[in-house]
């Protein structure tokens, strides 16, 4: 699994769960909050992405993540484990 693939999956889920983003390019250096996500939206995006990628990261390890790129790194770490 590549990091590009992971970012692609996260970006698709962001577009699917949030309003008015159909034609936007998701910038990985941004936070989901920048795209209007509230905490419930973020749980939805993270959970759907993990399910699709078939990985499971404890929520406690996600607390300090600041942007989509860092989330992808964390996913990659667990995909390789």
């Amino acid at each position, binding site marked *: 699994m590549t990091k590009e693939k992971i970012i692609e999956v996260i970006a698709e889920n962001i577009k699917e769960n949030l*309003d008015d983003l159909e034609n936007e390019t998701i910038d990985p250096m941004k936070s989901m909050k920048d795209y209007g996500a*509230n*905490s419930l939206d973020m749980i939805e995006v993270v959970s759907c992405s993990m399910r699709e990628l078939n990985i*499971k990261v*404890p*929520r*406690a390890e996600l607390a300090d993540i600041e942007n989509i790129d860092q989330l992808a790194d964390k996913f990659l770490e667990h995909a390789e484990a």
Partner: protein
Amino acid sequence: MANNILNFSLADFFFNDNPDVLSPPDDFSEWINNPVVKHSFSFFEQELLDAPRVSTEILSNLDGQRRKIINLTSYNYLGLSTHPEVVQAAKEALDKYGLGSSGAPLLSGTLDIHTEFARKLAEFKQKEDCILYSSGFGGNVGAIQGMMRKGDYLVMDEKCHRSLVDGGTLSGAKMLFFAHNDMESLQMMLEKAKGKRTLVVVEGVYSMDGDLAKMPEICDLAEQYGAGIFIDEAHSTLMFGEHGRGVAEHFGVEDRVGVSFGTLSKSFGGVGGFICANKDLIRYLKGYSSPWNFSCAPSPAVSGGLIKALEVATRDSSLRDKMWENTRYMKKNLLDMNLDLGGTESQVIPIIIGNSGEKLMTYAEKMQKAGLFLQPVDFPAVPAHSRRFRMSVSSQLTQEEMDTTLSIIEDVIVKDMKS
């Protein structure tokens, strides 16, 4: 998962990918049956063998023993659930009306005592009208879901109760969460909602931290943006304000708050919830608030007892005065021990332990075995770096019980944290 099983929490099993819809996620059972995880869950659903007074008895899940305990976990802030006059009134209503209301309020469930109680609550809260719900959770869900629609905006404090969030989800309105009690963040969210029908939702006393909503500033901002205000006074009704009407009275902003929610299970000592607002909005809610429309009306015995509870708590200030006296004493002594009580301003006193779930559980067990029932509050209910105990101070506490409590906390928590 085997090597990091203790890093998981309930937050991780919300989505279920098991193809068998009648089973939990595959790894949920592995997790919940791990001995350490199982032990931490044994603190929950322990049976009380007597009334939820301060002085009661527990059947401990930890070692199967029956144990006399000082209970600082129940929300019986004013001791009304066992007040002799309240119990007597409940018995009389039970004798007259029986156990249940046998119908939804709209069709046949409304009894004269429900109408009387709703009227008295509206008078107490100085609003035009009141609607009664059979559960507090249902009251919050029902009010938000009944008032808000797709296209509307809910601007909520991030620490709002689950019932308010669920009501928001059900309503279809867009939910924007502002950083807890942060006026800059509130303004940013109000800016995003500008021009839409917007309701600002806050709690009088926040249940995990015991701090108060900054009502004067919140009212100023909401008014500036033309938003309505909803306050959840679950942990403040009968306790805050000169007449016990809550945090809105405490800050002198009752006229500026459109909708006031209260629960009947905490200071009131019964069960249920209520919404006070203007007459037209209450009439509208009766058409669209599902937990009212499609639930059986409250049990008459409970409503009969609650009418008396309202009378007892408001005929003078003795119960809340005693509760405040006890709160001041506990808070002063806990602070003297250098414990972290967060920003509490109420009878809800958190004792913040930090990021160690293991310490939290060890302390909880030792305290319970020493005779103090103080439930641990773990992640994800609170942030992982501020796991805590949450003390509910009651007017029922005697001097001796407070001193015993403090000495157990000192022995178990303070001595260990120093070492």
